[in-house]
């Protein structure tokens, strides 16, 4: 199930949008960045089960992007997998929605963002099919990422302006801090402007 909202089909392909930008910073999975510089542009590509979360203060013109991999960090306290080599969980904090989103918001508040003027956008959260699996569906990470992002943002008092989540195709997105425009392209599909 794809969750999408009203949007404008862009006259530009995402590749054209990228050509018009002189500098762009790619956010990789498990990372986030925030800025108050109007020339900043963020780009994320091939978002599948992960989730790209964009926050933008329309008055202070500060914004940021997080590309989260997993919903919550709690599972690491109760892990039962038994792999011999344990994870150094400190290295992965920005991978989790419940940790990365508050951190991104903390950075943005430091740059002057306020919850009244900040709008959020969710992009990604797609999913593979499964053959069998009597033990529940461990693959619904995309949907769980979106659910955790929604509850985490609500807890922080932030509103979600737009979501482009679900389905089975990867998405690419560009966020331009100068005017808050956001372009999203489902791989192989048309480019839409959602803000």
């Amino acid at each position: 199930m794809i969750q999408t909202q009203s949007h404008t089909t862009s006259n530009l392909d995402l590749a054209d949008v990228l050509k018009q930008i002189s500098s762009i910073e790619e956010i990789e999975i498990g990372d986030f960045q925030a800025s108050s510089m109007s020339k900043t542009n963020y780009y994320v590509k091939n978002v599948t089960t992960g989730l790209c979360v964009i926050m933008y203060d329309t008055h202070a013109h500060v914004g940021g992007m997080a590309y989260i991999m997993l919903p919550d960090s709690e599972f690491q306290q109760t892990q039962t997998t038994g792999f011999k080599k344990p994870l150094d969980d400190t290295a992965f904090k920005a991978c989790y929605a419940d940790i990365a989103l508050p951190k991104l918001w903390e950075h943005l508040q430091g740059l002057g963002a306020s919850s009244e003027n900040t709008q959020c956008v969710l992009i990604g959260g797609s999913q593979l099919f499964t053959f069998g699996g009597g033990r529940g569906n461990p693959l619904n990470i995309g949907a769980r990422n979106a659910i955790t992002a929604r509850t985490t943002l609500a807890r922080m008092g932030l509103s979600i302006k737009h979501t482009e989540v679900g389905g089975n195709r990867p998405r690419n997105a560009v966020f331009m801090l100068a005017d808050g425009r956001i372009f999203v392209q489902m791989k192989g599909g048309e480019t839409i402007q959602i803000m």
Partner: protein
Amino acid sequence: MVSTAKKLTLESITEELTKLPSVPDVILKLSQMLENPDVTADELGQVIQLDPQLTAQMLRASNSAYYALPREISSMKEAVAILGQKALKAQVYAILSHKMLNRQIAGYGLAKGDLWNSALTGAVYAKKIATLYDFKESDTAFTVAVLRDIGKLILHEYVGDVFKDLEAQALESKQGFDEAERQLLGFSHSELGEVIGKKWNFPERMIYAIRYHHKPSDMKEKVSDDVYQLLGIVHLADALCMMLGHGMGNDGLLYAIDLDYLNAHGFNIDANTLQELMLHLHACQGEVKTLNESIK
């Protein structure tokens, strides 16, 4: 579903095989020599040296941070002795994969570099998964994973025109894009990969991995426990590559993960295991970049 897709036949495949990029003879010879456990470092070194470009690539890869050797290797004979035959085999297939797959695959919406990126990332992931599950031949896991999508080289010419039909079929049946290819085009990219693997005399376990990497439970051949495990590792690496967004084409996540097979072969995939695997594999990105730089 009614489709006007042009179907592949055995005759058309034979013609398509002739259009494939050529593989250097030295690489094919090496891949066969490396199947013989009694081959010596001298014999391998002599063959590799016949191709100066390959020699340079292999020495560069051997001395890269990926292997983190304590001293510099200056000859292929030394590389064989220090790295071992299985690691060297993985290197030969990675170089072959780069030669074959580092190109635009338009039918699947893959820009130049995307399919190669997916091939290499999946191979490094397979090696890591093998280590995490205590599978003794982690280099073999790398080797059999790195060419898993080679069939796309042929099928992409047919996929582009009927992509929407294939997507609709995959969504409707929930059997995956690979099965939709088979139903609408006559062959899937996995089946075409098997044909290519046989033509080039790839090792049998690599052919199984190519053929069944999207649905290992379809395999009817009786094989050893090692091969069953290897198939599970490659299938899991491929799925996690997609979940982490590497080398994605328009077919995206239109594939299934074979939980029945994985759990029947000891992988115990539940939500926690999957999440921990994703974090472990995410931590391998540095290795993927290092290896990519050394092979290019």
